[in-house]
């Protein structure tokens, strides 16, 4: 219904002219246009990525150069650098915690899904906007509030939450245990509450939009894989974030109202606490019920973006479109039944460990299918290495490297030794951290022309890619060795133990690589903001892509298409079709217009298509009549 009324509204005006009743506030701040909201998410995500990256540089300095005099950081860190110029061990934990929280939630969940789901869903399915523009705006601003609260928590006297990004109680519940579990933890919980509300509103919107607002002819079997990925990501988020909220709520009760959900038999700070009967393991179950699906919330959009970018730049249909969808569905379902593989040695029943090992290793199968499909898509393609394509290939590499180490960790017997060592750090930074990050960068490079009507500089993009790609491997690959050697995570220093009293050289190498990789991101930042104003003007379809967003004007207004929304007649991957003149056929080109390249089964679909076209004409005629 709403589509129709917007369509009429648009048809009644000349295109673009309705922008004049947007003032600065409604256009750039409280915007309800999905494209502007996407840009808001992107820029906010970039801010958080820089901050999260900076925090990691700080603790990498500590790990790589434990004897270094860090007095020069006092202007930023103040009292967290002690008189001898060393980083405070408590603040080290705060840095690790905040790095994790920021990167997982603010950058790779909000920054990635928020940006690209918002930007691409309406554009690629052929909708004027999200199902609810208002709720979409609310979603961003709740995220913003969440960010403000988290940001403030960095500056309070007792420091931000410091119990690791998983904030396991009792550590996170008891102020006596660590200073960060005081006000810092309270702010963490409040911020996360806003964040959860924000993701739910976003997710409901994405799902509703994909289901209800697809343009004529855009059946689920013609959806680009990006949309499939965003759609399933939103479904995962919708089902798992409420559980995190429950976990957080019970933690709030334990912290503030004297309940014992997670607390039992605790003697701390010279006194025995009255709490009995609670279980810290309960929290872990609840947390990882979100925590593991969260990994896929972060990863699936990146895989969706990659599918689109690789197909376009290979000038070749994505191999196994249906298999890709089935594996996405498989990952979605399985992501909910593997959470306890984070808890093999938490003290839970070993039988449960057996079950979760089995389920965990199953999830490797759809992941493997995706990798093989990417490889086959590249095979005998005609590959154009745009920066987006490079980052996508980088993503596939990280996905393989990090995915394979997951097989070690998913096997409970092997996990005994590797759990909570640097092997885990290497694993998830590659498979979800770097892979998703590369997906996000690929998305920015690919859709920048659609976002800002200008091109990013490709050469700077290449430099950015190679520095980042090599850099990420130089940071995380050595961590496998350190992890196999048994180095535990979240250690401030490794000098206390004989078995960790080595690899100072390797840790130094990792830190230097991390700093270089971090600095390389400034090339991207420069490229991004410079190209936004001074970049070369983009053409309408710079990558010669098939999807709908490239049929909009260079600067699409609110409503995306000036006239009617185009109808869709074919799947989005008709690249290099035999018989066709060009090496791409956009989704809007009817099969009846390309008899020379139609496959036998497509010839039969031509009849169905003619009906759609007739319907479309009727709408056009009725709109014209209203003029």
């Amino acid at each position, binding site marked *: 219904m709403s589509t129709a009324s917007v369509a009429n509204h648009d048809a009644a005006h000349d295109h673009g002219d309705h922008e004049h009743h947007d003032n600065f506030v409604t256009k750039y701040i409280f915007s309800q246009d999905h494209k502007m909201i996407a840009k808001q998410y992107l820029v906010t995500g970039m801010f958080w990525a820089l901050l999260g990256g900076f925090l990691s540089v700080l603790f990498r300095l500590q790990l790589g150069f434990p004897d270094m005099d860090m007095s020069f950081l006092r202007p930023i860190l103040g009292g967290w650098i002690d008189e001898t110029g060393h980083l*405070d061990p*408590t603040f080290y*934990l705060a840095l690790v915690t905040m790095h994790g929280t920021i990167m997982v939630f603010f950058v790779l969940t909000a920054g990635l899904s928020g940006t690209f789901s918002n930007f691409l869903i309406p554009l690629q399915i052929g909708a004027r906007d999200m199902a609810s523009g208002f709720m979409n705006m609310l979603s961003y601003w709740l995220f913003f509030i969440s960010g403000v609260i988290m940001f403030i928590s960095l500056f309070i006297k007792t420091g931000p939450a410091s119990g*690791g990004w998983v904030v396991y109680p009792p550590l996170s519940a*008891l102020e006596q245990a*660590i200073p960060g579990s005081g006000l810092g933890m309270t702010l963490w919980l409040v911020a996360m509450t806003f964040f959860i509300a924000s993701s739910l509103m976003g997710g409901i919107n994405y799902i509703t939009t994909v289901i209800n607002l697809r343009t004529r002819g855009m059946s689920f079997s013609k959806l680009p894989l990006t949309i499939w990925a965003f759609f399933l990501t939103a479904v995962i988020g919708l089902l798992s974030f409420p559980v995190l909220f429950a976990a957080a709520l019970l933690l709030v009760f334990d912290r503030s109202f004297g309940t014992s959900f997670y*607390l*039992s038999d*605790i*003697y*701390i700070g010279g006194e*025995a606490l009255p709490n*009995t009967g609670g279980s810290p393991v309960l929290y872990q179950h609840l947390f990882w019920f979100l925590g593991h699906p969260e990994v896929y919330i972060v990863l699936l959009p990146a895989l969706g973006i990659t599918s689109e970018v690789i197909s376009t730049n*290979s*000038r070749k*249909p*994505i*191999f196994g*479109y249906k298999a890709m969808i089935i594996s996405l569905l498989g990952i979605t379902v399985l992501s909910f039944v593997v959470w306890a593989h984070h808890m093999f*040695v938490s003290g839970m029943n*070993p039988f449960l460990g*057996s079950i979760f090992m089995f389920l965990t*290793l*199953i999830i*490797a199968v759809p992941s*493997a*299918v995706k990798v093989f499909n990417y*490889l086959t898509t*590249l*095979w005998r393609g005609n*590959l*154009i*290495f745009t920066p987006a394509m*490079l980052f996508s290939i980088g993503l596939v590499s990280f996905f*393989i*490297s990090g995915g*394979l180490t997951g097989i*070690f960790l998913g*096997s*409970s*017997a*092997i996990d*005994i*030794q590797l*759990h*909570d060592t640097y092997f885990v750090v290497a694993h998830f930074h590659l498979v979800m951290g770097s892979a998703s990050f590369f997906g996000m960068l690929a998305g920015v490079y690919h859709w920048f022309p659609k976002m800002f009507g200008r091109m990013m500089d*490709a*050469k*700077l993009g290449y430099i950015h890619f190679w520095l980042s790609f*090599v850099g990420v491997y130089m940071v995380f*690959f050595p961590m496998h*060795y350190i992890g196999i*050697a048994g180095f*535990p995570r979240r*250690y*401030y*220093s*490794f000098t206390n133990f004989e078995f960790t009293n080595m690899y100072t050289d390797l840790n130094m190498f990792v830190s230097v690589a991390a700093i270089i990789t971090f600095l390389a991101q400034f090339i991207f930042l420069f490229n991004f903001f410079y190209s936004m104003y001074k970049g070369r003007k983009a053409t309408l379809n710079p990558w010669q892509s098939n999807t709908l967003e490239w049929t909009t004007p260079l600067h699409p207004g609110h409503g995306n298409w000036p006239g009617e929304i185009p109808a869709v007649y074919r799947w989005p991957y008709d690249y*290099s079709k035999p018989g066709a003149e060009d*090496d791409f056929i956009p989704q809007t080109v009817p099969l009846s217009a390309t008899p020379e390249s139609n496959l036998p089964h497509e010839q039969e679909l031509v009849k169905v298509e003619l009906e759609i076209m007739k319907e479309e004409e009727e709408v056009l005629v009725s709109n014209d009549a209203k003029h």
Partner: protein
Amino acid sequence: MYGFLIGVGVLLIFSIIWMVYRIQTLVSVVKGSDKKIASGSNKINAILFIVFLVGTGILMFWYSIKEFHNYQLPIASEHGVVTDALFWWTMGITGIVFLVTHVLLFIFPYMYRYDVKRKASFYPDNNKLEIIWTAVPGLVLTGLVISGWMAWSDITAPAPENAHVIEIMGYQFAWEVRYPGKDQVLGDYDYRLITATNSHGIDFTDKNAIDDFPSPVVKIPKGEPVLFKIRARDVLHSVFAPHMRLKMDAVPGMPTRFWFVPTKTTAEMREETGNPEFQYEIACTEVCGNGHFSMKKIIEVVEPEEYQKWYAEQKSYIQMNPALAAGHSSEMNKLAEN
């Protein structure tokens, strides 16, 4: 002064980069290569993938072989041999997949880099291929699951009757060790009984507790099953003995356990590693506060005879501090004196 010079240096570097950037942009506009769908950079990027593949491949093999003795800690427990075998089997299988997929991933960009004259082949799907690469990983993973599951159920099976029981309690930021004494049974405890002198909260009204004794190190006999009863007093901790391939969380309110058979005494290990200072260590692997990185306990593996001798010589808590039993029945005190 130095700060100023560094600032100028950085500024200079940035302005040079900036100029190079501008010049190459202008040159590409003049040459018209910015209009082309794939410029000369396409080939360079394709070659760089090969360079990356070869370069990092060599680096990886060289370092993995050179450092093997460093990162592969010697194994000192029976199940450790099994889990390490599993680890290296998995490494072999995934290693092959890793190499093959990466060779393809980086060679394809070179082989199929853009050529105006060529058209990509339209190859949208092949169900046979999909089934093959669903089934093969499925089968391989089934093998890994079954072998992993067998090892896991052996490791987590109930400890043998004759296992030496030792309690390890974690607190911020150390471990404490309690032995059950002559009766081989640990006495009850209650966290509300914890005091400065009774750090475990041992209930000395339980007669099993009377002969319990503490130890500054975890002394265990070689070749005999040992059962760690693990608990925590304040927050989560995790007992990690890397050479024993042993890890189990210590959870307040929920005792956990891990049993194993040590296979090498500390002395034997000193000989094997050539390090006369070698000691088995326990570290904490669950973040527990600012002293997390320093929760160390030494394990000393000795010959069974030496262990028996040492065990018999230990003084119980009550012998060391009779006040602990104060207020208990005279019968208990009598028991304690024996």
